[in-house]
């Protein structure tokens, strides 16, 4: 077969893709380029449109408007079986009536690959996932982790331009999931295919992907490398969904060189201009809990400081201590402190001040909801 299923190669381009189910817009005017050979993650809470996006790429849904290209080949309305795309399904969807060998060989046989080559390629990919000894078993005789690897093998044996992974590790327990994350990443490097991975697990996305697109309500909130997203969130949703953030309502009152001076309920702090996303003077001043330092209030230390805090809760976790500090304006601020200085943790009720290196703070548009992405259900299962 000399159709797109084997020939199309290149970047995946989604342009102005919208998908509506009746009144509900699952994916809203989404444009996206996924470079060839990258490990790309679509990350977001349940119902954010990430799975719908994946299904449109796979051909299991048709976009209401917009186009999808692989390289120069348009695949928007192409039937699934003609696409240069293979999917690793949630819960694997292995064929229960076929042996592991025939499961993996399924795609090759459909494309008319010769028996001899089928055997060779299937054996090769079973070696890659380290399960050649299970070739004659049936899927039900395999453990969850083994089935998962067979599902990956069944897809990559076809050498698709794109491999789609739909929450592939969702059904595995935590330990196995960590192990499979490393293994999948290794397989991707080994075979050099483009992987598009859909997940609600931010840690999973950050461990595996080169590039993450954070999705919320059918739109991409922000796209970038894991470190970039974590360090430079552009919206409150990203700041809260990837890790935790303290977001404090404030106002830009002055500018000083490459910094803004921000007033937070009467206390003045600074934030770098290049780390500020604001429409006007109203901002959400952000700082990650592990970037904060906590000291007794009498302590004198220069730099960015907020005074007048009172510890309302202490959780000792071994490597670190987590504090909740109530600020004079009533907001609770999270602080993670490494237990590496030999000083015993502070007590509940202690008066404290919080300080940080100015480069760690960021500022977001002050008209956003500071709670966006805080309490979203990761996955309604």
């Amino acid at each position, binding site marked *: *077969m000399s159709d797109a*299923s084997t020939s199309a190669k290149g970047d995946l381009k989604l342009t102005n893709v919208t998908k509506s189910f009746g009144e509900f817009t699952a994916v809203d005017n989404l444009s996206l380029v996924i470079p060839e050979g990258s490990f790309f993650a679509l990350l977001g809470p349940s119902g954010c449109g990430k799975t719908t996006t994946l299904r449109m790429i*796979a*051909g*299991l849904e048709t976009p209401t408007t917009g186009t999808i290209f692989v390289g120069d080949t348009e695949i928007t309305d192409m*039937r*699934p*079986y*003609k696409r240069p*795309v*293979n*999917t690793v*399904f*949630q*819960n694997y*969807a*292995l*064929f*229960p*009536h076929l042996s592991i060998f025939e499961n993996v060989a*399924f*795609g090759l046989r*459909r*494309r008319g690959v010769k028996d001899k080559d089928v055997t060779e390629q299937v054996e090769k990919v079973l070696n890659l996932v380290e399960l050649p000894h299970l070739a004659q078993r*049936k899927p039900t005789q395999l453990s969850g982790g083994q089935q998962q690897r067979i599902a990956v093998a*069944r*897809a990559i044996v*076809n050498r698709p331009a794109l491999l789609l992974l739909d929450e592939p590790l969702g059904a595995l327990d935590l330990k196995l999931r960590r192990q499979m994350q490393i293994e999948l990443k290794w397989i991707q490097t080994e075979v050099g295919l483009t992987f598009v991975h859909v997940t609600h697990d931010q840690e999973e996305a950050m461990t595996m992907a080169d590039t993450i697109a954070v999705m919320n309500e059918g739109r991409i909130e922000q796209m970038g490398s894991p470190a970039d997203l974590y360090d430079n969130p552009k919206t409150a949703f990203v700041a809260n969904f990837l890790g935790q953030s303290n977001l404090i309502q404030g106002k830009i009152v002055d500018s000083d060189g490459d910094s803004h001076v921000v007033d937070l309920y009467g206390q003045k702090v600074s934030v770098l201009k290049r780390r500020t996303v604001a429409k006007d003077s109203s901002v959400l001043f952000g700082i990650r809990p592990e970037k904060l330092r906590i000291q007794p209030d009498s302590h004198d230390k220069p730099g960015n400081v907020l005074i007048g805090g009172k510890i309302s809760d202490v959780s000792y976790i071994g490597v670190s201590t987590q504090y909740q500090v109530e600020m004079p304006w009533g907001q609770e601020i999270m602080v993670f402190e490494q237990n590496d200085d030999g000083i015993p943790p502070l007590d509940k009720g202690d008066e404290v001040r919080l300080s940080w290196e100015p480069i760690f703070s960021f500022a977001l548009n002050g008209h956003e909801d500071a709670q966006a992405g805080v309490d979203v259900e990761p996955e309604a299962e």
Partner: protein
Amino acid sequence: MTLTVAPVKKPRSRKIGMPYLLLLPGMLWLITFFLIPILTLVKTSVNMDLKNYDPTSAATGSFWGNFWEAFRTHEAPFARSFIYALAATLIALCIAYPLAYGIAFKAGRWKNVLLVLVVAPFFTSFILRTIAWKQILGQQGPVFHLLLNLHLVTYQSHITASAGAVIAGLSYNFLPFMTLPLYSSLERIDPRTLEASGDLYANAFTTFRKVTLPLSLPGVVAGTLLTFIPAAGDYVNAEILGNPSTTMIGNVINAQFLRTSNYTLAAALSFVFMVMIIGIVLFYISRAGTEELV
């Protein structure tokens, strides 16, 4: 403080007895209503010598002789029973498969309503439904009128009282027995395996051939058996929708028992028929090889 050791009871004896106790009612039922009648049937079938049949004589027949005699003299009804049942099974399969497929995959919220409709005919009596078919296929009925308008029949012809009518009646009456097992096996298929098949370069037809059909085979086997066995033994359809040259073995047995009162022949025929059905079923199951699927 003194430790009092509670006397250790022996729960084992009770636990071992319990399953047998639970089996008892069923076993008694089977012995009374299945095993004893079968033995009686075998005994009855050699009561008299069928080859030299003489109701006034006290001579008993030989075991194999009587069965052979019963079979030899009724080859045609035996053959018709199996041919009609086979035809009805195939027709029912062709009707029931798309129906069950539709209910399982396409019916959405109408699923339960449609399932009730499949079973709904059971709310009226079997004989009444078969008589209704006589009206439907009769000269005043819609089928005849349609065929008349298509110039496929004339006013002089009839479609009732024929082998076709018997087969039509059989396929209709046992359709739910075909539909329900098919539905339950199709319904169990994970739709994601079908999506996976499409994802792995199989078009809709190949997906059906390579995934849906093999996964529904247990339902096909169960449905065909549940249709074929009662259809082969049926005599109501041949009685109401057939003619004297479409008699099935059920009609012969019925007549021998109730009209001619030749109990020996009726019993011998029943026994031969039972053995043949068991043979066919065992052969079919061994060829279908479904043990790997269930």
